[in-house]
Each structure stands twice: as C-alpha cells, then as structure tokens.
C-alpha cells in the first residue's frame, strides 16, 4: 500500500519525526515539557568550494525544500 506522505515527497525519517512530535504533544503537562526538549533540532551546514566556506544554511529548511521538490516531481 503506498503511503500518502510518500506521495507528498516526505521521507520515512520525516514521517517518524512528525509522529514522534505529535506523541510528545499529547502527553500530560509535566512529561510533555521534559519530552518536547528532545524534539528540538537546529543544525546548519555549508558547502565548501575551493577552500572557501559557502553560505551556511539551516538543515531543516533545506530538507523541507528538497521534500517539496520530490513531492511536486512525483505528482506531475
């Protein structure tokens, strides 16, 4: 069975992280506060070219951009 999120370009990793995020948000107040800290991700990357560091970009933004691209390719 093809998954709907797959058709939209989402990866399995993204699927898992969305599912985990919603589970954390459904917890009771005290547990939720501790758990939600695990969901934070703030990674940056940049491409090095000819010994020079390129523009540094947010990994989360780059990931969602590439997933949007994958989604539009599969639907067109």
């Amino acid at each position, binding site marked *: 069975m093809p998954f709907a*999120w797959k058709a939209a370009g989402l990866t399995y990793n993204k699927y898992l992280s*969305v*599912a*985990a995020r919603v589970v*954390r948000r*459904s917890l009771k107040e005290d547990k939720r506060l501790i758990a939600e800290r695990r969901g934070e991700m703030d990674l940056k990357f940049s491409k090095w070219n000819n010994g020079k560091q390129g523009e540094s970009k947010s990994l989360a933004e780059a990931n969602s951009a590439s997933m949007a691209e994958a*989604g539009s390719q599969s639907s067109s």
Partner: protein
Amino acid sequence: MNSFRIARAALRARPAALKAPLQRRGYAEAVSDKIKLSLALPHQSVYKSADVVQVNIPAVSGEMGILAHHVPSIEQLKPGLVEVIEESGGSKSFFLSGGFAIVQPNSELSINAVEGYPLEDFSAEAVRAQIAEAQKIASGSGSEQDIAEAKIELEVLESLQTVLK
C-alpha cells in the same frame, strides 16, 4: 460398569506416568517458553532483554501477537499500542510513535521506536485539541507537505484516541 473399572485403573496408573517424563527431562526440554524483549527508545530502554510471555504489536501488515519461538521477522510498526504480557500475568501498555519490531531466531524480540509512553501519561484533552487543529490544516489550503504532515498527525491522534477510551 466396565468403564468404571478402566477409569479407576487409569487413576491408579497416573502417578507413575507423571513421574516418568520428569526424570527424563534434559536440556532440550528445559528451554524456556519466554521471549526476551528489548524495547528501546533513543533516550531510554524500557525493557532490556526482559523475559516476557507475549507481546502484541501493531504492525503495518496487521496486529500481531508474538510468543516464544516465533518465526524470525522484521515488521514495521504503525503508531499504536504495544501490549506486553509479563511473567507475573500482568500486562503493560505503551503507545509507540512508530518504528520497527525485529524477531530474532532465539526468541529475542527487539522493538525500536522514537517515542513511547505508558498509556496513563497521555492527556485526552491534548489529543482532542490537536485533532481539531490537524483537521483544520488537513482540509485547508496549505502546501502539499503541510497537508501530508497534518494527515500523519491525524493518523497518530486517532489511534491514540481509540486506545485512550
């Protein structure tokens, strides 16, 4: 009358018959009928090769119960309830956000998930509020990815709501 006599003879014969197989017991028969369960999250291991009797898992291919000597397999899990029946007879339920269950040949079961909590840690109100929120996004005019994310959330929340009832 005849059958009575046979029954009585059988009763008398039983103690000897019971003792015999016990005396012959060897290693092969003494194998335990328990599964070694490891339930691991990235931040915590809930079970660490603990002996349990049965584990019910929500696999993508259907709900399944795993006992000792299960055929080795790898199953992808849906977000759902994992029920562990322990040696003492009691059972514990965890809601996992989805992951994999791996049955190894020597009655070992490893379950990996991103998040997992006992049922009593969930708040039914939070679930209800989020369902309303996710339904709004799913039927709204956001990007295809936003709608797909909202649908994943709905899948998890609806599964959570049915088990919380």
